[in-house]
């Protein structure tokens, strides 16, 4: 992990129906790190991820990704394609598992044997190479999430955003996905931002952890410090399972 920032957010806000759902005073995300964002439901975690993926436009404030400053103009496609999200409830296409995984590659103009090899390798990684030709809509929740992860990984994103990727999954799938996250970060240097309710998952995976409450960043620190010596009383309360909202 370096200290070069891939993202710099400053006074970034988002409002829905005059209600402020996100208000990030300052947040830097470093290249190659795993950053966990924890917080209760409705804290604005998923909204933040959507902004990081340029899927929403902020109401105000600035967002810088690499050298690109988000302004009124559109985000260049080549930059947008460096980032992808695995959502909590992935939507798979009514095609085979292999076709789903290949989707992002085909968008990028890749075809033929090259795609097949990359898809096979990705399905090997997530342990689903026996389901290559299965209809994606017939998969279990855990399998579908692994397909979604493979679909994201084949495009070799610089930034991988994970929105509750293991919520509602059994321990086997949780462990498998966590291992892949760690491996991808270590071997490919992928910057990973993971939103999770599970503070133990944050503890296991993340270099840094941040607490988001009511759209505001309460605390961000090295994961060890965050859990052993939090500076904010609300962080302390949150990691001890107390109601903080």
């Amino acid at each position, binding site marked *: 992990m370096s200290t070069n920032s891939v993202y710099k957010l400053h006074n970034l806000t988002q409002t829905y129906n005059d209600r402020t759902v996100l208000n990030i005073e300052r947040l830097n995300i470093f290249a190659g790190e795993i950053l966990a964002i924890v917080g209760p439901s409705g804290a604005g975690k998923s909204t933040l991820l959507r902004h990081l993926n340029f899927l929403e436009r902020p109401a105000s404030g600035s967002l810088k990704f690499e050298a690109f400053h988000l302004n009124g103009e559109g985000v260049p496609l080549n930059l947008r394609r460096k980032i*992808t999200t695995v*959502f909590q409830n992935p939507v798979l296409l009514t095609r085979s598992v292999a076709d789903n995984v290949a989707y992002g590659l085909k968008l990028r103009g890749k075809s033929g044997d090259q795609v097949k090899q990359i898809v096979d390798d990705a399905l090997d990684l997530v342990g689903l190479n026996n389901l290559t030709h299965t209809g994606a809509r017939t998969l279990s929740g855990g399998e579908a999430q692994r397909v979604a992860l493979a679909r994201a990984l084949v495009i070799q994103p610089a930034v991988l955003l994970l929105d509750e990727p293991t919520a509602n999954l059994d321990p086997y799938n949780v462990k498998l996905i966590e291992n892949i996250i760690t491996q991808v970060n270590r071997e490919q240097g992928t910057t990973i931002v993971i939103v999770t309710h599970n503070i133990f998952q944050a503890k296991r995976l993340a270099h840094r952890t941040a607490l988001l409450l009511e759209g505001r960043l309460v605390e961000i620190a090295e994961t060890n410090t965050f859990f052993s010596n939090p500076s904010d009383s609300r962080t302390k309360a949150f990691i001890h399972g107390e109601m903080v909202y």
Partner: protein
Amino acid sequence: MDDLIRGIIQAFEIIFSLNPALYEVIWLSLSVSGIALVFSTVLGIPLGAAMALTRFPGRQLMTALLYTGMGFPPVVIGLFVYLMLSRSGPAGQLGWLFTPKAMIVAQTIISFPLVAGFTMAAVMGVDPHLRRQLMSLGATPWQATVTILLEAKIGVIVAIVAGFGAIISEVGAVMLVGGNIEGKTRVLTTAIVLETQKGNFDLAIALGLVLLLLSFLVNVALLRLQGKAFS
């Protein structure tokens, strides 16, 4: 009952007699409805997709207009097109009245709201989070829209089938704007009306059977396109 059976037997004799006049009527029916269907598909699918996927001021009004168009009496559309294309109408100088072009215009207006409305419903039936997912994977807005339409393909094919069904079987509008002129604007439906009025039930039944058969074959072809016909 005997008349009906005799009529059906004679109908088959007429069909297999390779009567050029009959095949001319069949060809004109198919070409007018086919061209109208192409126009309404080209206009209706993008409009239906856009209305399902975007939010804009006046969308509710447009939706209401579209749904109204889906149930609009064809004969009223025929009257409207007639008035537009009549010598004193705003498009009278085109000289299209009582030509296949006028019939194509009328049938396009009849089927276009059906294609757009059913496409909109089909696209709205696709998981609303899919677009965000596709954009996240690097799709351009156009690529995402095409993928969503492919996800909704069963509904989109139904939209096209509904559009075709409405115009191949339609009689009032084409009668008004085409005039049912023999060898020029006579199609299956208008020919059935004419032959029934003349008491030529065998020919009317033959034309009716041909219409049913054509409708069935075209629908089967469209259903096979989506690969779901017999699954």
